[in-house]
């Protein structure tokens, strides 16, 4: 009976192409539309975003994907000024690439130049990860766990999650790093043998997210240990996490440059 049922259900793993798409019913990541950024639209966006992801600095208007919680209200209220990116290839190796900046004079995106290449010493056929939750609410952790389920199947890429940092090639860190976890994170990092990498999973791990500014958090993994790959999202879907791991392993090209998919 059970075997029959298993056979009937068949193959579950979805293709990578499938995993990297945001489903139709959900909002992906916002994308500024330079041509629609009138003075009035800018004001409206600054006022309506619950997480304060929009900012204005002199003659540039920007959007920080590492702060955006993905509610989609900006694109709904101001479709002329904000569009949507429906892809999960958003992991980056440098933080500037998570920020969209529009030069308001010219009406174009600023380009921060080509991102640094991934580290060659981590381009291994298999990578073992140790997950450290450092102040995460449990949902980014849950997405990391689900990246290993039969649908997402991180094992097919040679990735696995191991129990000890001494068996790991890299750390996956979630959460804004609560003060009470900073020391444990540092020591876990030290226990990983060289060469080692770190992936910061989720907005809170990148910049503190909604906890940025709380005296009880450090406000980002890279303030405690060096970070190689940042995966934005709140929490990032498993596809985005897998893309981040592939980026760490040097098997995909970074597509998000200056906050825009290129």
């Amino acid at each position, binding site marked *: 009976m059970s075997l029959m049922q298993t056979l009937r259900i068949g193959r579950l793993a979805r293709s990578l192409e499938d995993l990297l798409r945001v489903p139709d*019913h959900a909002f992906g990541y916002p994308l500024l539309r330079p041509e629609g950024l009138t003075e009035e639209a800018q004001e409206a966006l600054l006022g309506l975003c619950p997480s304060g992801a929009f900012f204005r600095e002199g003659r540039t208007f920007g959007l920080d994907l590492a702060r955006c919680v993905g509610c989609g*209200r900006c694109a709904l209220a101001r479709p002329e000024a904000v569009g949507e990116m429906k892809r999960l290839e958003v992991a980056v190796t440098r933080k500037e690439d998570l920020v969209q900046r529009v030069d308001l004079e010219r009406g174009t995106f600023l380009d921060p130049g080509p991102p640094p290449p991934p580290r060659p010493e981590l381009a291994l056929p298999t990578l073992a990860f140790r997950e450290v939750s*450092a*102040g995460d609410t449990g949902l980014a952790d849950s997405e990391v766990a689900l990246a290993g389920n039969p649908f997402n199947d991180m094992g097919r890429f040679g990735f696995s999650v191991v129990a000890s940092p001494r068996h790991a090639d890299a750390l996956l860190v979630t959460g804004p790093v609560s*003060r009470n976890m900073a020391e444990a994170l540092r020591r876990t990092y030290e226990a990983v043998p060289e060469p080692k990498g770190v992936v910061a999973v989720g907005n809170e791990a990148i910049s503190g997210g909604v906890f940025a500014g709380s005296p009880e958090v450090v406000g980002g993994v890279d303030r405690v240990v060096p970070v190689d790959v940042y995966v934005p999202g709140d929490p990032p879907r498993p596809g985005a996490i897998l893309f981040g791991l592939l980026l760490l392993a040097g098997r995909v090209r970074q597509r998000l440059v200056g906050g825009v998919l290129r």
Partner: protein
Amino acid sequence: MDAVKEALREGRPVALFPDGEGVVLVAEVGRDVRVFHLGEGRRFPSLAAEFPAMDWWERALWERGYTPEGHPNPKPLRRHDLPFAFRAFKELHEVPVGPVHAGIIEPGHFRFSVLGERIVNLEIRLGYQHRGLLALLPGKGPEAALLLVERAGSEPLAHALAFAQAWEEALGRKAPPRAHALRRAALELERAFGHLGHLAGLFTDIGYAYGSTQVGRIRALLQGELDRLTGHRYGRNFLRVGGVWREGRPDLSALALYREELARLLPRLLKHPQVLDRMRYVGVVRRVEAEALGFVGPTARASGVARDLRQDDPAYLSFQPVVRQGGDVLARAQVYAEETLQALDYALHFLTHLPEGPLAQDLPPGDGEAMARVEAGRGEVFWFVRVAGGKVALAEGVDPSFKNWRALELAVRGEGLPDFPLCNKSFDLSYAGNDL
């Protein structure tokens, strides 16, 4: 004071939080809520010696600068910059575990005192997830506040719902009927999703791969429907004060199908000899303990306490709480299994009986205060909010995990050390929810 003691003797604490120089105690007696104002000048009489359920509450206030006078052993709960000593047993061996664990799980520290392989005592030390969430709330408007509230524990919908209801009640408003039904449908899907996670984890921990894969498969599909309904895989950014933001279209026939499949699968899995062998009579929490320490949710119901906040909600027609008497890991697993089916039934009911009307009403910035409770997957979520000029003046929340962590301390007493992960998974509590 006598009235307070009587309430705690017959009921249990729901919340204890500071308000100005005094302290507010909320207690539930039967199905009634009673509110007491205790102490002044940041001092209040300790009740922990007589009512052990008050111990953690008072410690949580103690570290926030409110003195429980006469507390037998005040020590920090979440703060790590204050001195902390574990209970010492001279003749016993100590096994420290955590804060970083072997699995993909939040951090916490467990100190076992063992005699050979037997656990004599467990002391839990948390606070690693403390992010100062409550202190960030004052001054925030409803939307910015909800962002934080949705991060108060791993059940964002339940927290957001309790907070939004408290806010609405503070202003004397109600969400429109359609929003009310959609909120409840999402809450029930969250419950089913969470419970299946607990079950899949339990099967993993006893090495029953077939069980965990099957349950995990349906759980992943169910999450897809929660995603369709709310636009988020965990239901964030869905609720707002005054209603809901959006209304997605979950696939109702798929939901019915998953329910069917689970109804066939779960009872069979829970009768498997391997499951019975590993889960029965392990990690027992007795009813007297559950009542004395004020446990809530499935933890209490698996120990024979027939209380579920949905009993008080007229939207749940003919609601019957799922209760088991065993108090062991198996009883908790049975409660999860049965409540999953029940939750899916109600979700389908709400989604097929959606009243017509708007999704939200805009609330004017006003003043007021109110509290609200919601039965989340893990038990009672509590939020109190005082609104002044449309902004939070004071907000306090309690995740059910805070009330249930000590159930784990009791459950593992006398068990072998290797049974700890299984016992822990049977409660599957939120660390962040405790540490706020």
